[in-house]
């Protein structure tokens, strides 16, 4: 329990900054971090813990946003900015005592508090051991003493806020240039995570993860018809430095969504029925997230998430069986450039790697952590342990999951040419899937009719519904490597109490045959 004296006498903000600072070419963690980490490890040993790890984490989030909307009465465009920054610093200690886990955390990063909180984690572990059916078993891991950071040229936090605001204002004003556009918003979010990890296995790892998210929104309203429509541009959300931002191309995409939101307002609703679909990467990425990445989490498959996120239609008995067409090869990968799930090491000190999940339609591997590997006969973890804060317990979270591209000969145009009656879906809409990941219904942000092998005008009110294994077996083509794109999602919820993660998925435009298309209200 954090008492009042501790609360008022908290550590200095500058302490956190200095703690993680180090010469750029340094290859080992800060000595000060190592000293703090060793307090937890020594204290746990004193209590006869068979395992201990500590994460000391500093999180920073900067958000810059601008909304343009009409003044009531005059119609004059009003500008409403949102400029703010949050930072958070603390540590969490995990122990195994008597074969059971215990965890405790605190925002006060001092040697005394680390010792006290380690004791709290031990108390919790001992209490849990009273109804622990089997002792926790951890897969072996190598010990590392190292540093890792998101490759970047320019720290996005040092770029002046004025430069960020100018970029957003230009984009928001570009969207508003058509007087049929009711309102526009533009935003940038920057995130940094300084993280130090030490474990009783001998690891001491310092990491810096940088992420950038951008967003443009346009809204159009037809009051006579009683219709409101929107169109968004969500550039690839990336682990990167500021040098990535020009690649978002906000200006050109602002023009595009301005035209498309107006077209969307008068677009006729889809005629429902069985249709062929072309799903673009910034739409299909979330379908992959929901129907491939989540069901291949081993904790779900074994019932550990039964009370909230659910279980899975895939079980250990599915290994080696076909669950998708031969066009579908998926990998889990925490090493790929600019992906949100890319790290040097996971929150158990396991080095990041790539592994096959589905190979040409055959299910091969679950996502695992150290305590799960032995449950499916694996000798080591796939490095999928992550916590969203110093205050939360690390558990199994998905890596970046990618659909490998098809043959270089397969183009978007050739896939469209092979469709008589279909829909091309772009961007994110409504996503809903059952707790075993069978029945899904997904919408998009914009839709185009495909008739007689050609892309026609925009349509509206589209959703498609299916059963996951049938849907992926209905995939008959995915475009070649030159079409492959990676996108990110920042709100992935799992666990109780819920933790929120950011992750990337990549794919080429992909075709699915005879999918059930619905018209929505």
């Amino acid at each position: 329990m954090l008492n009042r004296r501790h609360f008022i006498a908290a550590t200095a903000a500058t302490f956190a900054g200095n703690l993680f600072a180090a010469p750029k070419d340094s290859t080992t963690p800060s000595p000060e971090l190592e000293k703090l980490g060793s307090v937890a490890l020594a204290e746990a040993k004193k209590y006869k813990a068979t395992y201990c790890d500590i994460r000391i984490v500093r999180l920073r989030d900067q958000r810059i946003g601008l909304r343009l909307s009409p003044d009531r009465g005059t119609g004059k465009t009003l500008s409403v900015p949102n400029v703010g920054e949050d930072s958070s610093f603390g540590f969490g200690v995990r122990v195994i005592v008597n074969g059971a886990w215990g965890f405790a955390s605190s925002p006060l990063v001092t040697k005394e508090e680390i010792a006290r909180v380690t004791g709290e984690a031990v108390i919790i572990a001992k209490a849990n051991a009273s109804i622990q059916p089997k002792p926790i078993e951890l897969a072996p891991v190598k010990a590392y003493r190292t540093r890792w950071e998101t490759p970047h040229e320019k720290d996005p936090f040092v770029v002046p806020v004025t430069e960020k605001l100018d970029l957003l204002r230009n984009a928001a004003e570009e969207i508003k240039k058509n007087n049929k556009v009711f309102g526009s918003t533009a935003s940038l979010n920057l995130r940094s995570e300084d993280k130090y990890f030490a474990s009783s296995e001998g690891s001491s790892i310092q990491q810096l993860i940088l992420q950038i998210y951008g967003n443009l929104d346009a809204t159009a309203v037809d009051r006579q018809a009683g219709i409101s429509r929107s169109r968004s541009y969500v550039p690839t959300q990336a682990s990167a430095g500021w040098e990535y931002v020009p690649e978002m191309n906000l200006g050109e995409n602002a023009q595009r969504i301005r035209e498309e939101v107006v077209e969307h307002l008068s677009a006729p609703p889809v005629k429902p029925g069985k249709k062929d679909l072309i799903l673009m990467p910034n739409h299909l990425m979330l379908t992959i997230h929901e129907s491939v990445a989540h069901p291949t989490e081993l904790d779900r498959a074994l019932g550990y998430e039964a009370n909230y996120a659910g279980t899975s239609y895939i079980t250990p008995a599915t290994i080696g069986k076909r669950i998708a067409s031969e066009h579908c090869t998926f990998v889990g990968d925490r090493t790929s450039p600019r992906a949100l799930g890319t790290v040097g090491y996971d929150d158990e000190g396991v080095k990041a790697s790539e592994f096959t999940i589905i190979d040409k339609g055959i299910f091969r591997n679950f996502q695992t952590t150290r305590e799960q590997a032995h449950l499916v006969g694996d000798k080591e973890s796939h490095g999928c342990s992550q916590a969203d804060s110093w205050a939360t317990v690390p558990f199994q979270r998905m890596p970046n999951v990618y659909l490998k591209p098809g043959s270089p000969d397969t183009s978007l145009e050739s896939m469209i040419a092979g469709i008589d009656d279909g829909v091309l879906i772009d961007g994110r809409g409504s996503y809903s899937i059952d707790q075993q990941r069978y029945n899904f219904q997904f919408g998009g942000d914009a839709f185009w009719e495909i008739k007689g092998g050609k892309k026609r005008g925009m349509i509206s009110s589209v959703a498609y519904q299916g059963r996951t294994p049938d849907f992926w077996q209905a995939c008959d083509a995915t475009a070649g490597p030159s079409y492959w794109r990676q996108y990110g999602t920042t709100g992935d919820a799992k666990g109780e109490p819920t933790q929120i993660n950011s992750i990337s998925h990549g794919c080429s435009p992909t075709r699915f045959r005879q999918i059930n298309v619905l018209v929505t209200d």
Partner: protein
Amino acid sequence: MFTRDEAQKLAQKAMGFSTFPECQVTVSASEQAYTRFANNGITTASLATRQSVSITVTRDSRTGQYAANDLDDASLKEAVKKAEELAAIAPPNSERLAPLGAQQYPRTFDFDERTARARAPEMIPHVKTIIDIALKKKLIAAGLIERQHNVVAVANNTGLFGFHESADSQLTTTIRMADGSSSGWAGQPSTKIAELDSARLGNTASEKCARWKNPQKIDPGNFTVVLEPTAAADIVRLIASGFSGRNTEEGRTFLSKRGGGTLVGEKLFPEFVTLRSDPFDPRQPSSPWTGDLLPTRAITWVDKGVVKNLSYDRYWATKTGKEPTPGPGGFGGGGGRGGGAGGAGSLQMDGNDDSLETLIGSVERGLLITHFWYIRPVNTQTLQQTGLTRDGVFLIENGKITTPVMNFRFLESPVRLLKNAKKIGQAIRVRGLEGGMMIAPALVASDFPLPSISDAI
């Protein structure tokens, strides 16, 4: 955690570091303890403390905000300086209003010390009770018991100060057949941890699991449904966003009239539908102040089927000559990061004395639904939602439960659901799987669209 005096001194100190004409400080702290279980054993347990100070400064309508969790003098000075640096370069906010002066905030919550202090010794016996029930019946239990203690203070340099301390708890369990052929759920949120009833929840979930075994496929379509209170709240609470006065007047909600105007004053729902926000109801915690820092108050949104009020923030109320209001609530789990505790959920729908059995007895042919899962908006204007039934769906024939049936996807809006409501029952506080809280009755509605079957158990 801190006292009212400590919070006030901390806020005064932070404001003292600011050179700007307007400065607002929010100081908050929380402590969360939980035990999570699955496969008839404990999987994780945690004790986590958090604290934060958020500083918002404004000059010439230019606002900057900075939040940190270091609270010593040097850190507070640094945080104020960063907020002022952001404000200096921010563009003016065209919708900025002058800050409020001193406010008299009502007391909204009966704080329970035992809930705020509960740790493993109080929680593990509940877990053991549920696991023992499951083991006895050769079933598999998973679940969560959690409590949260929150303290928040707000202050500004024009005399406003407020302090609020709350505690909340919840216990939920999902009990499944070992072969995965059935699943049952039960949950209870409570502002008093002593009221959590693990035996009742364990028995309810295990009985539901036993009764739902080997569910049958029946053709999808539109059904009369009996929604248990959690299921009713899962959908009804999503009507809240439609009461935004601004969005409605701008033509963007279900309460916007075609061609302009609103549907306030019109009877849209049956006589027995009354929706209110009551922050003084002791069953669920609510903040004493609104999002604009005005004192909260009770407000009726729908009275006996007639739309009575829309929600107005200070800015839009000023523009339209209306009184500012609280928001409807019902959105999320509050301060528990989805874990369920603390928070702002004061939405409620009135009920009556009818039991769930009475409602089931009134249905000739229909479905009883335990709760829903993965509910997402399909159309933010009509409020059409999609999601799935979960952990127990049963066919009702001639007023009696006859057959367990497979899960369905639904496609429905809270607006249409309430228009089609036929009967309601007793109202209780519930918390949905995805965190939404409200006080809701069981509800019978006709013509509920369930367009496809889900194979999930």
